[in-house]
């Protein structure tokens, strides 16, 4: 099967991709860095975090690069002062929705949210904080979830369903009450579907999901070369 090749520009650079690819895919292939917290190569995109928003010439709306397919002749602006402002505002709101305390977080120095604030030179917050009282579920023997640090990227939900095939993780409630949950809200440690594979912990961009017994700022969990490979294997097998 042949696929149509499209040519387009990103930040004025001539690039090419095949039909069905997203702006994010083509940017990644060409070494153009577009930030994203919910995007992760190897699992399907959902366009939730809005950090990958880009401008497309002729369109009045911003588009999320991870869920917008390329088209012939498209002119994409991925970096501008206005876009950085939007990204800074989105990052600030993600910080303020839960209780992120970098200095005492298990993911300190290995956190994608903290790194993003650094990249965007977000040095303080102007908006009021929500400061919700949320739980920690440490009932699983190996792992724990601290909802204080959860940004609802839902990488855990997607990797558990699409790669591990267990679908232990899902989402409950709405709006500010939204939480990721294990098996209809029962404690993680009592989950009959969880295989304890740890993929959710590996893909979590913050310190929300972590391995028990690890001290503050204890180590990176960003090495996950298996993911895109598993996705390709699944597609080959028609899953």
């Amino acid at each position, binding site marked *: 099967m042949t696929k149509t090749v499209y040519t387009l520009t990103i930040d004025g650079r001539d690039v090419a991709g095949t039909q069905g690819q997203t702006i994010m895919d083509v940017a990644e292939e060409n070494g153009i860095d577009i930030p994203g917290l919910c995007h992760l190569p190897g699992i399907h995109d959902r366009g939730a975090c809005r950090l990958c928003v880009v401008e497309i010439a002729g369109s009045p709306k911003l588009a999320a690069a991870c869920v917008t397919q390329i088209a012939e002749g498209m002119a994409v602006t991925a970096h501008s002062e206005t876009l950085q402002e939007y990204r800074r505002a989105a990052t600030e709101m993600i910080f303020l929705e839960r209780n992120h*305390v*970098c200095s005492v977080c298990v993911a300190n120095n290995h956190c994608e949210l903290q790194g993003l604030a*650094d990249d965007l030179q977000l040095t303080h917050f102007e908006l009021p904080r929500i400061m919700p009282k949320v739980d920690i579920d440490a009932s699983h023997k190996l792992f724990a979830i601290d909802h204080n640090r959860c940004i609802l990227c839902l990488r855990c939900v997607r990797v558990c369903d699409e790669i591990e095939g267990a679908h232990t993780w899902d989402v409950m409630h709405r709006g500010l009450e939204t939480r990721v949950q294990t098996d209809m809200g029962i404690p993680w440690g009592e989950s009959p579907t969880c295989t304890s594979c740890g993929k959710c912990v590996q893909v979590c961009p913050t310190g929300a999901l972590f391995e028990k017994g690890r001290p503050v700022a204890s180590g990176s969990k960003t090495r996950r070369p298996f993911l895109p490979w598993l996705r390709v294997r699944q597609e080959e097998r028609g899953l």
Partner: protein
Amino acid sequence: MSKPRVATVWLDGCSGCHMSLIDMDERLLDIFERADLVYGPLVDIKEFPEDVDVCLVEGAVSSEEDLHRIRQVRERTKVLVAFGDCAVTSNVPGMRNPIGVAPLMDRAYRENVTLNPQVPTQWVPALLPTSEPINRVVPVDIFLPGCPPHADLIYTLLDDLLSGRTPAVAGARFGR
């Protein structure tokens, strides 16, 4: 011409930012050749003075006393720097915010005490309902996040301010 007047203030923080300040080592001599240290935990002066040029404020605003002090600092200071994560975000002191003051005091002074449990009401300032970043209380001119901010960043900031340059706090980040 008299030297610029620099002050430092310690609100609800662990003093780690002040430790990082001291960690400038011999560069302290350079800074205080060019400026006078007129107030701070390292200076034996009780009242925050008038006409301060630069004030580094460590810590969140957590008590009635912190609130009084930060307002006075703001009135008497030209350039107010939120110095470190507690001052910038309320950081660890702010972790009590979702709990509330009454359950917090009960936990600290009643539940875990076997002899004569009582909440202190004298000689210590009352806690505010929540612990707040400085910019939620008074305007802040410069934010220097970090837990603590690295001594190099503190030096660069003070060097820029004392040289009349607009400080670029590049490299400062939450946590460490």
